[in-house]
């Protein structure tokens, strides 16, 4: 029974790691330790299972001048969640969380439908939807960085009320959820450019821009330092308030992009059920991608892999003939496995079993 005693904390908790490199074993260790190995293995595992149960899984063909196939489909369907998850990765990197992304999507959708009804220029509508996402991010950021409210609580407010706001916006024109057509928005969402679906290009461009911002400016370092230790970041001259605010702005903006894609896809605004549970999928993707909810690190590439793992699971359940209801259960099991693998207690237990077997 050691539950009652504080765990013995050595004065220097530095764990001594075997030196990497040199011996082949060391190189293997270095490879296993690479942060992308686990998420990639999870993705590979799902895809291998897919290939086994449905032989034609990886087939890609061209239909009506556009690529089709399960793999394309995974990317295609994952795109809105990927946008949200990238924003979530940034926010989680600052030790925060954004629960309101689903609500932001609902609000953006409602604004698009409303302004369509009013007959605005579609380009202006696009800008308005994105601005609405920024405004929501500003609100969250204000609560977190200025009022210093815990992120999970601060973003809960918009999460609870956001879909209601969407419904209210719909009421502005009667709220009958009419469907609309817009060459611009639907072009972005369901159209294709050459062989490639447009939304994949949009997603790639946004990912690249975000990557530039996080890794090719010092912004990423500032985000991570604020997430790791806001006090020291401040003392090192980092404007922590501005950095936090920006993180929620980014998340709001990316949720708005997802909102545009999803709304254009369904041709209508449905604030109550659009993107339900998307915040949970996004958080899950960040965690699968190696991010810790304790903050301090942003893994954009890992997050994308995390989204793909989740979407591949969904797609493979669909193609395998299992009823789609299994999706949630499978997702839950995956989360549990990932969490157990990430826990140091579990690793210690596994190591001790292995060591005992060797001895």
């Amino acid at each position, binding site marked *: *029974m050691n539950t*009652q*005693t*504080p765990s*013995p904390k*050595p*004065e*220097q*908790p*530095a*764990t*001594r*790691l075997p*030196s990497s490199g040199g011996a082949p074993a060391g190189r293997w260790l270095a490879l296993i330790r690479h942060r992308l190995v686990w998420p990639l293995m999870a993705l590979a595992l799902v895809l291998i299972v897919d290939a086994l149960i449905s032989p034609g899984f990886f087939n890609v063909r061209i239909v009506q001048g556009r690529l089709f196939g399960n793999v394309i489909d995974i990317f295609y369907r994952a795109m809105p969640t990927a946008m949200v998850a990238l924003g979530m990765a940034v926010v989680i990197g600052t030790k925060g969380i954004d629960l309101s992304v689903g609500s932001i999507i609902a609000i953006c959708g409602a604004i698009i439908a409303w302004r369509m009804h009013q007959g605005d220029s579609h380009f202006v509508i696009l800008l308005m939807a994105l601005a609405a996402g920024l405004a929501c991010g500003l609100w969250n950021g204000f609560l977190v960085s200025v009022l210093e409210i815990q992120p999970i609580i601060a973003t809960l407010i918009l999460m609870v009320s956001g879909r209601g706001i969407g419904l209210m916006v719909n009421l502005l024109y009667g709220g009958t959820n009419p469907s609309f057509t817009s060459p611009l928005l639907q072009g972005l969402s369901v159209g294709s450019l050459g062989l490639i679906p447009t939304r994949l290009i949009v997603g790639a461009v946004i990912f690249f821009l975000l990557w530039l911002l996080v890794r*090719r*400016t*010092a*912004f990423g*370092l*500032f985000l*991570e*330092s604020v*997430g*790791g*230790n806001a*006090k*020291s*970041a*401040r*003392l*090192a*001259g*980092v*404007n922590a308030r501005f950095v936090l605010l920006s993180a929620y702005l980014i998340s709001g903006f990316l949720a708005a992009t997802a909102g545009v894609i999803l709304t254009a896809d369904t041709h209508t605004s449905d604030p109550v059920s659009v993107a339900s549970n998307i915040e949970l999928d996004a958080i899950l993707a960040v965690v699968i991608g190696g991010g810790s909810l304790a*903050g*301090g*690190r942003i893994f954009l590439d890992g997050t994308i892999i995390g989204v793909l793992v989740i979407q591949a699971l969904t797609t493979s359940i669909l193609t395998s003939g299992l009823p789609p209801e299994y999706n949630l259960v499978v997702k839950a099991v995956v989360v549990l496995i990932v969490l157990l693998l990430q826990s140091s207690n579990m690793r210690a237990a596994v190591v001790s079993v292995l060591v005992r077997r060797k001895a």
Partner: protein
Amino acid sequence: MAAIIELTGISKAFPGVRALDHVDFGVEPGETHALMGENGAGKSTLIKVMTGALQADGGTIRLAGKEIRPESPGAARAAGIGAVYQEVNLIPTMSVTKNLTLGRLPRKFGLIDWGAARAIARAKLARLGVDIDVERPVGSYSVAIQQLIAIARALEDDARVLVLDEPTASLDANETERLFEIVRDLKARGLGIVFISHFIDQVYRIADRITVLRNGRRVGVGTTEEIPSLKLVSLMIGRDLEHIEHQRPLMDTVASSKPILTAKGVGRRRLLEPFDLELHPGEVVGLAGLLGSGRTETAKLVFGAIRHDSGEIRIDGHHIASPTPKHSLNAGVTFCPEDRKSEGIVAELSVRENIILALQSRRGWLRLLPRREQDRLTSEMIAALNIATPDADKPVGQLSGGNQQKVLLARSLVSNPRLLILDEPTRGIDVGAHAEIVTLIRELAAKGLALLVASSELDELLAVSHRIAVLRDRRMVGEISGAEATREHIIQTIAAS
């Protein structure tokens, strides 16, 4: 007299560290026994073993002649060994009653009898002569009262030993005196008291005997008469004091040049009385004073980490309206905070990222320092400061305390400061790193940097400073330089009331 508690040959090792090496320690009934040692000497490990928070690898503990093996703080307390730890102690959101009775709540018909619980709480406090409303949350009382509540909690009815780990760290003089009265009273009732404090003068006021630990070994034990303060300090730090005195800079005033930073009447209500300070190139100014005297606050006000509400700060003669860390950094002023873990390092980030953080924030977020430049600066710093790390991409949280401190110094130095503010630069680091940092401070001053060094270690200040500003009770009470700068004179200045 037979010891009430007797620890014999206690050893304890952590991975890579031998925290205790066959240490003997005993307390007699009615005795206050001070346990002294520098950070990392093994004091906290020893009391954790004594109070069941840790289990020793070897050795025996005898309580009133009977061997015991406390497996948890609860078990130790039940056996009669109470402890008040330095930081975590009570739950501020809970009532005093709950804090005092948690884990031993009296019951009636299976449910908690709050009337009885309140009575127990009042009785426990009454033994210490404290009479407060036991229904209010602990957090609504002053730190001094909280300290007494913690002691009341630690003392079972049949307590025989009480361990006080830095109990006076955040108390003022009156509160300390009240605590000492209580300690004397408990002593008179036959309790054995283990007293740990870094205030040497307090040790001589309250303790009967002293045990000194260094690097996990007992290096001295004796009555307070047998170990006078000079011997105590030399036992603790394991060096000749004279040796340090020799290395002192000549304390001569630096050739009158234009000051880099001038503070005139700078202060903040309820935090620090207004003070004047001038810092010249090539000059080291020390900030001396007891804990809580306002050393850290002075450093932070000068840096802009805390806003001042009176006076003005000038850098190079330019008035800085509202100094912030960012302004100061841009003007070439950097700061290494005292609390490394909570204000200094970003544990998750690598050595490299930690080192370039301040420089990068000075450049702004758009102009990322090129990676090659980052690597060059980092490896330069690792070499110059002798930072022990396998590579620059290791998370800084995995380094030892001394190396973390060096990384913080590197963060300051890499941004090419003209004024460097160091708050407790040698706290909690080993002797080797300690000496390296003292040498470094001298070298930096010789290169023309201005330094403001706050430290609780007087000898360290004497070893590096050209002038020493002395603080007492949140007020700057004097500036000492030249021949006046002796240990005795500074202690007198601190002690004068």
